[in-house]
């Protein structure tokens, strides 16, 4: 289902644009370093982090996991459809991915509003500093992912992907997967692991 081997790219190569893969590696590096810093700080003061985590809305965040994974799935379906020259279907799947992003963003904003309403800020303590920065940083990535998906959708309407030239779609899908992947690590790391 989530395989990226598309019929339009018979030669053995990575999907999408190489420049985007440099970028994705750089992003993963940044998130990796951030996660390690989180882990070290948590290790130094587990009581503070455990206490902070009890205030988080894990259920709400679980819904967000579902939204992002759904978005990943529809993004793959979109790439497949466009590779098969089924542009209408591809267009619908792209809209679905974008919509899943909207759901994530709305849900996340409500969650942020709840924490800020309770007076938590970056300067509250180490837990809230890491929690707010990591999730806000990721939140911005989701928005960027939506911008990219929207750009691909517009290009699709303009007829840029004729004859299975799917590099742009694959590039966008790869980026969305990266954002999804980071969340799948981030979610248990800050919400669940005690």
């Amino acid at each position, binding site marked *: 289902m989530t395989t990226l081997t598309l019929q339009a790219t018979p030669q053995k190569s990575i999907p999408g644009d190489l420049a985007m893969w440099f970028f994705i590696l750089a992003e993963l590096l940044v998130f990796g*370093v951030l996660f390690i810093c989180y882990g070290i700080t948590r290790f130094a003061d587990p009581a503070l982090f455990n206490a902070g985590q009890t205030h988080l809305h894990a259920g709400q965040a679980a819904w967000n996991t579902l939204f992002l994974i759904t978005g990943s799935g529809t993004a793959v379906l979109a790439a497949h459809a466009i590779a098969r020259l089924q542009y209408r279907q591809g267009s619908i799947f792209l809209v679905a991915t974008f919509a899943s992003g909207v759901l994530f963003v709305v849900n996340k904003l409500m969650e942020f509003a709840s924490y800020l309403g309770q007076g938590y800020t970056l300067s509250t303590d180490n837990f809230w*500093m890491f929690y707010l*920065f990591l999730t806000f940083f990721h939140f911005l990535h989701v928005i960027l992912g939506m911008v990219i998906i929207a750009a691909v959708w517009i290009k699709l309407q303009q007829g840029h992907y004729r004859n299975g030239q799917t590099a742009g779609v694959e590039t966008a899908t790869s980026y969305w997967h990266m954002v999804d992947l980071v969340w799948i690590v981030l979610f248990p790391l800050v919400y669940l692991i005690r």
Partner: protein
Amino acid sequence: MKYQSQAVAKPYFIAAIGLFIGQILFGLIMGLQYLWGDFLFPAIPFNVARMVHTNLLIVWLLFGFMGAAYYMIPEEAERELYSPKLAKLMFWVFLVAGALTVVSYLAVPYATLAKWSGNGLVATMGREFLEQPLYTKVGIVVVALVFLFNISMTLLAGRKTSISLVMILGLWGLAVFFLFSFYNPNNLVKDKYYWWWVVHLWVEGVWELILGAMLAFVLVKITGVDREVIEKWLYVIIAMTLITGIIGTGHHYFWIGTPAYWQWWGSIFSALEPIPFFMMTVFAFNMVNRRRREHPNKAATLWALGTGVMSFLGAGVWGFLHTLAPVNYYTHGSQITAAHGHMAFYGAYVMVVITMISYAMPLLRGREANSNRAQVLEMWSFWLMTIAMVFITLFLTAAGILQVWLQRISATPMSFMDTQDQLRLFYWLREFSGVIFAVGLVLYVISFFIKERKTANA
């Protein structure tokens, strides 16, 4: 030189080199003041010498950037400059304003200058690197705007290449962020916070776009590698520069009253700042290795490669050395900072301007490259200046480590001045290296006047 109007770059380059000489002269004076504290006192107190040293650096680099833009943009846009007359006029305005500023630094006490120049109305003076009186700051803005108007009009009417777009974006950014130099709140923390929006977002932000564009331009010309390849790398490098460098501003927000979380974000993102510099080094060597032609200007190639290596060492490695908050806690505001500042400015900005001058000046003087003798001398000056700068950096680093140890780490911390007395050996060695640097600079200047031997052609 393909377009007549590119010739306006020439006076800019000459002025840049002239002010460079002045900068080094005052550097040597300050080096001596580190050894004999009362040298030239009270005629030229240290703070005045330092102001002249750093301001001359900024002004001559700006001359270099503007000259580079006037040379590059017409060639990239494939049309004459919008207004060569305006460019010539702005040259004289900027030169006279710059010279007047330096003379006023030297001639009258700074407080008097502040009074005369209306600092009481809009207080902007007396902050590091932004010491210029109000009229000079306004002058810089006017010159920058006219200059940007001139090259933007040229570009709008002509071919828009990635190199010229990046160059112009960097120059616009330079002008926009300079506007923060007019914001000087009474609150010292806010003052310092936005002061860095000029200083950091210049040298670790928009200036790197200018640096990248200038290097890419010269590499296109001397290697003959496909423009597409070079421009692709340019985009990737400057993307990484801004991705790491903007939040990297946080490494200046550790100890100035800003929230503690900057220690995390500043450390993490600035730890990644060497990546774009490393890519720049790889890029420069890669392009030269893949060259499709043998350009007769060997000296320019050497400067281009030198820029890649030295900016990585100075900005990348020496920056990383003290950028992590737990390290910076001890090294902040020590000679280690000075060491990094020297090699980073030389390796990145001084060298890229000289790269451009080295490539463009022979063309502006009507030949593809200088005579072999002139190039050999220029390469000597390259090695002398570069090696001297490496040693200046090493000696200042040694002085810094000793300083940090004696003054901040040891169980019985010494006072600042007692510590300074212990560093004299390194200050001597630094001054000696500085003299070598000056010799290299003299050779560099001489290399412009070496003529081809008539008989050599036979």
